[in-house]
């Protein structure tokens, strides 16, 4: 447990901005435009684009360990092809354990 309760965000303001952007469903392009035009107001932000904000949120995800990417290279001597994949069982574990979907999971038929 880190001593900074807002980690990986730099401050409460930083966290609140990210929280607001997610809750209000601001589009990725609009987020990028917001930061590009300097509207975030301070240089101490720990994120400066939708991508970097998503990286912070991934750190906070307690089930992120299930979503590890694996890389494979297949080579026949003439072609080398790289592909990326996740463990499908871990993906299922993630979906079932994810708190955000708690109220939406069903284990028996419903009408």
């Amino acid at each position, binding site marked *: 447990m880190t001593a900074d309760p807002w980690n990986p965000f730099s401050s409460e303001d930083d966290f609140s901005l990210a929280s607001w952007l997610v809750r209000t469903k601001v589009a990725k392009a609009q987020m990028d435009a917001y930061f590009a035009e300097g509207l975030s107001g301070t240089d101490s932000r720990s994120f400066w684009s939708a991508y970097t904000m998503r990286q912070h949120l991934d750190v906070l995800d307690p089930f992120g360990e299930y979503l590890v990417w694996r890389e494979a290279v297949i080579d026949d001597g003439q072609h080398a092809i790289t592909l990326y994949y996740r463990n*499908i069982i871990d993906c299922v574990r993630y*979906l*079932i354990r994810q708190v955000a979907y708690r109220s939406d999971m069903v284990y028996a038929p419903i009408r």
Partner: protein
Amino acid sequence: MRLFGNMIRVWSEYILRYIRRTGGGIHRYEIGPDMFQVVGVASANSPLCSSIESEAHGSTVLPIIGLSDQTPLTNFLEDTKAWLVYVTIGNMLSPTRNSPVKMPILLLALLPVLPKFTGESARADKAQEQMNADVPPTVFDLHQQNVKTSPGPPRGVMVPLVLLVHPDPPWSTFSVKFQKGWIRMDRSGPHSDIFLMPLSLRHYNRWSQKER
């Protein structure tokens, strides 16, 4: 709690009865223009049937829904395209599953679009496709997993994996047919490390993998 357990038991028995009534075979296997949904089960004599009989009480049969699409990789200079494979599960209420903001659909694999083979490779590919077309689809396996669920204690979950079996060892593992070709689903150990791979990559003789 007892009521809930009984509901699951009734559901399992319903599935088993349905399999028997249909005489086996995949009773629904849908391939749409952009996605397929695996909802179907089993040959009456397949391992799946006995697995349901012996293990399903108190468990949940978990439908996996796969989606695929092809997208250009604009970060690369060349005209490179990738084939995205997504996965979600059928236990989620459809308004949530179809929500564009709740992100219940996970990116499972990023596959390259294969180069076109010529000569001997192409002929072998064509022969293999013909052989696959001749093999009737069969559900092959269930994976029994104890999965921690969000609202409660660990739950026995049966993940149906999947679908088409072809008989040429050492390649006779799981295969799934997507819209634009074949994807193999192999596994290197029981209940773990399942990965996807385009079928025509069988010609490749070196396979390496690592975690990123």
